């Protein structure tokens, strides 16, 4: 599997570390339920998912990838926190 890094272009997935589902971090005082949702509970879809990958052996950017978990097809990859990111 190759991931299209917005900075480096298509790169071998071994250059990246998977950092899990892209979720909005709750406020520190958001309460137990919000943190339980953020830390543990997952939609875990068999289909498109937005997730973080860290390009540790490349440009060291965090990227937000839209990938289909059933086919591994990648439809989008943007810099995390940048334009188009969640």
């Amino acid at each position: 599997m190759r991931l299209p890094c917005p900075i480096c272009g298509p790169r071998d997935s071994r250059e990246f570390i998977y950092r899990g589902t892209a979720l909005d971090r709750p406020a520190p005082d958001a309460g137990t339920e919000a943190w339980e949702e953020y830390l543990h509970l997952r939609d875990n879809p068999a289909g498109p998912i937005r997730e973080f990958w860290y390009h540790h052996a490349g440009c060291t950017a965090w990227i937000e990838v839209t990938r289909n978990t059933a086919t591994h097809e990648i439809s989008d990859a943007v810099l995390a926190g940048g334009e188009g990111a969640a």
Partner: protein
Amino acid sequence: MRFSAARILKEGLTGNRGWRPHWRSPEPKPDYDIIIVGGGGHGLATAYYLARTHGLTNIAVLEKGYLGGGNVGRNTTIVRANYAMPGNTEFYSHSLKLWEGLEQDLNYNVMHSQRGVINLFHSDGQRDYAVRRANAMLIQGDDAIILDRDGVRRMLPYLDHDNARFPIYGGLYHPRGGTARHDAVAWGFARGADMRGVDLIQNCEVTGIDIEHGRVTGVQTTRGPIRAKKIGLAAAGRSSQVAAMAGLRLPIESNILQAFVTEGLKPVIDNVVTFGMGHFYISQSDKGGLVFGGDLDYYASYAARGNLPAAEHVMEAGMALMPMIGKAKVLRSWGGIVDMTPDGSPIIDKAPVDGLYLNCGWCYGGFKATPGSGHTFAHLIATDTPHEAAAGLRLDRFASGIGLMDEEGTGSQHNLH
């Protein structure tokens, strides 16, 4: 139809014309007391023990494909009870005891072979942890022996003992661990459940769970609606999709775990050997194939096949541990969809919907749990109280932080295990 040596002799002398299918293929009835979603090892075992232990037989097991076509047919067949954390130790100990009487109980040959499991260690720190784990196993009443360098050398002469990076310091030997014939386990439980009147319904995918006033009333399926008073979910890697039908989100991410088999060879590996530092473990099937695997593919996936980096890593680790296997040709590889929880340990608990029960989160360890899981899940469904051996497998441990079972001591967070 009972199996026995006399029966085999009789059938052999009369042209093998007396054998019959091991289970029926009934049409679904409109109404059951209990529906089990998922006709894999855990679902079939649950139905078996509901009938066998609790005398409940108005039960259907609904399977979207064929019986035993999921992870019970896609694992590396290892059976062991060598856990360290409270919650896990008593559960897997309970399961191993059921394994030891399983063939007689089922009247079915599951080829359970207690050939021993050896976990290798490669440093003083790892030895300390192995001793701590061995003590936990002994306190639980199971067996554990610490092997020193020479002990491992005598038992497993074919390893690269003086590997420059990971020299072998010794091993944690669990003699009662071993392997079993994975498909036969599913078949044996299916036959045992069917004989007691459980309806095993294949090609029947659950498409909805009906809930009225906070209580389950039945399921929608590709073969029509079926009513039920209680519903147990045992859908392994697809647990999140099934639970979502009841409006639940689970602490689960589905990942791929690969396994590999070589061509058949003469007997060479007598035990199960695990090489934790390289993420590699191996045994030899009764057919002669070397069966081995390693770590997850490490990202969410339902592809049911592996990616090459993980395969390459497993091969490299295997070569590092036992260079001789480089001559064996890998015949096939496959991937199973495993339901990973944040702490790497399973869940058997009531769902926050009345009449709905969860059996999920088996990570990479579901096969050895099959009888224990079925037995304790049946107890929970039948009595509405957790079985004492599975009381630690709670759904709320992630939110509360109480009773987490992260065996590797890495914490409770997705993508760590």
